[in-house]
């Protein structure tokens, strides 16, 4: 095989050169780092990057938009009611003559605020609950897990509606309603991680040597939990945005004159036949936000946890 290209052989070609130990030991590629790897994988995922860029864009627009529009979100001007898009009012005006462009971005701010707040509280409670449950184990863990098992069986739709009925509708009420059941998923994941670490042999070994526990937690547990938290955050936020909008749509949401994306969609729907732009603009921003978060969430899950990649 492969003989054709060979030139004549000379005896000096058969001189031993000795083993190049350096060459033999060479490892392909530099050692890698968890976060740098994750970022590299995320960068390769164009769809997820699109999600990231468009989230940044929407957030920026939400805070810059109301400033550059030249109108206040609640400023009514009945002389310009229900006007379509124009150079004066980019998204047109609503039935009270309010500038829709300003209101949409103001509403985006409120939707984002609720979503981020709910997501962060979920994560905080989830980490605390999960860690305590796993760390103490035994009957404490049993009781805490039974509580979770029951909460999982109660869909947040029921809880959210019950809460919204007793409490005054508003930003904090919606957040509270979302958090009541929202933290459960995070708590389960964190518990799983801590349990896993507790069972690792190296953890036992390090503990029996009386040292290194803090370092192990820092090196192994924290990166895993941060990764889980980030993924959870990315899935919770669109869910919260959706639920807030949903509640507004069925009449349990933000109260007037405040507006969220959901209440704007709900108000706009009343003008479907005629002035449908009142619906499409907030609905468009809402969908863009939802799609972007879901795309980024998928990308992050793949990047942070390659085992889950499919």
């Amino acid at each position, binding site marked *: 095989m*492969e003989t054709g290209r060979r030139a004549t052989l000379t005896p000096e070609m058969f001189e031993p050169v000795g083993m*190049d*130990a350096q060459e033999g030991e060479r490892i392909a590629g530099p050692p890698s780092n968890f976060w740098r790897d994750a970022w590299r994988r995320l960068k390769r995922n164009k769809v997820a990057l699109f999600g990231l860029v468009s989230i940044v864009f929407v957030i920026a627009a939400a805070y810059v938009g109301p400033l550059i529009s030249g109108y206040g979100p609640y400023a009514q001007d009945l002389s310009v009611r229900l006007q379509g898009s124009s150079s004066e009012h980019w998204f047109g005006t609503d039935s009270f003559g309010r500038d829709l462009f300003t209101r949409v971005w103001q509403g985006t701010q409120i939707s984002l605020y609720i979503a981020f707040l709910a997501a962060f509280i979920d994560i905080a409670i989830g980490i605390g609950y999960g860690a305590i449950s796993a760390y103490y184990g035994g009957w404490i863990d049993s009781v805490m897990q039974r509580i979770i098992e029951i909460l999982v069986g109660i869909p947040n739709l029921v809880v959210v509606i019950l809460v919204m009925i007793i409490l005054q509708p508003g930003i904090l009420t919606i957040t509270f309603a979302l958090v009541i059941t929202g933290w459960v998923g995070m708590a389960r994941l964190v518990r799983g991680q801590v349990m896993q670490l507790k069972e690792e042999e190296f953890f036992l070994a390090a503990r029996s040597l009386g040292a290194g526990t803090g370092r192990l937690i820092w090196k192994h547990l924290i990166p895993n939990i941060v990764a889980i938290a980030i993924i959870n955050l990315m899935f919770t936020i669109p869910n919260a945005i959706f639920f807030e909008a949903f509640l507004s749509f069925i009449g349990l949401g933000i109260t007037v004159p405040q507006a969220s994306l959901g209440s704007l969609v709900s108000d706009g729907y009343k003008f479907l036949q005629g002035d449908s732009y009142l619906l499409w603009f907030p609905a468009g921003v809402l969908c863009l936000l939802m799609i972007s978060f879901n795309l980024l969430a998928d990308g992050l899950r793949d990047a942070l946890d390659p085992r889950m990649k499919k």
Partner: protein
Amino acid sequence: MTNGDILLKVKDLKVSFRTGGGEVQAVRDVSFDLYGGETLAIVGESASGKSVTAKSIMRLLPADTSEIKGGEVIFGDRDLLKISEKEMEGVRGRKIAMIFQDPMTSLDPTMKVGRQITEALGKHLKLSRSGANKQAVELLQMVGIPNAEERVKQYPHQFSGGMRQRVVIAIALACEPDIIIADEPTTALDVTIQAQILDLLRDLQERKGTSIILITHDLGVVANTAHRVAVMYSGRLIETGTVREIFYSPKHPYTWGLLTSVPLATSDGSQELIPIQGSPPDPLDPPKACPFAARCPHTMKICVEDMPEFTDFTGQQRAACWLHHEMAPHVEPPARVGEAK
């Protein structure tokens, strides 16, 4: 034992994988023959291409990431790499069957084991349901599973690892194939079970005359089971020969390394184990010349410039190493080599 006829002929097989980092040439120019009734062991460390070679013969590599770049697999009068998928289905399970490494994952957890055996019987031998069921019970008895009538109605999770591997062997034997490819069939099992499974394979081979291609990294398994050995390294075949030849007078420095780096059951424990220095070449950028040159204690200039041809020795032995060129200096194998066994 060997009836002397060539049953399967693999010629210049080349297989590549497409990965994020580029093309990986998993198998490069591998050629070997399989004789009727023999056990041929393909030996090598992980990622040496031995499993890929096996799966290529069965055309079981994932189509979206791998490609058979060239070569022939002649079985009977057909090249298995050229026939249609439909024809290939008639070969798989019927003429050539396969046993996988991990019995815990190679059975469908949602299907009764009897059904998993009869699937192949129905497909190839057109047996009726009841005929196939009867056959399944007999097969389980043959591979040494007690209470076979009851066991066919059970699910894989009700079997232990060793028992599951027996079931997998029963599936492979179902249609009495000419060749069984066993890909690390004992690696995932306990040592005591390993011996039982190997005994079973050897016993079945004697009774049925089936040829076996045994893929393994375990030289102990080779010594006890195989008739001939093919040693692979970094996707290339570097030495072949009978078990005696490979164990008593190996010709390739990599084979020397393999033999001196593991304790053999027969050694008295006095010999020192000598690990092979270094690690295998980067599969994304394998050397054009001898793949072992970077780790070989006898590397010469020519070794890093050109791939050596096979040198034929007495008997059936062949090795691809420049040391056996007439211009090369004479090198003695390490002292321990040849004492083994």
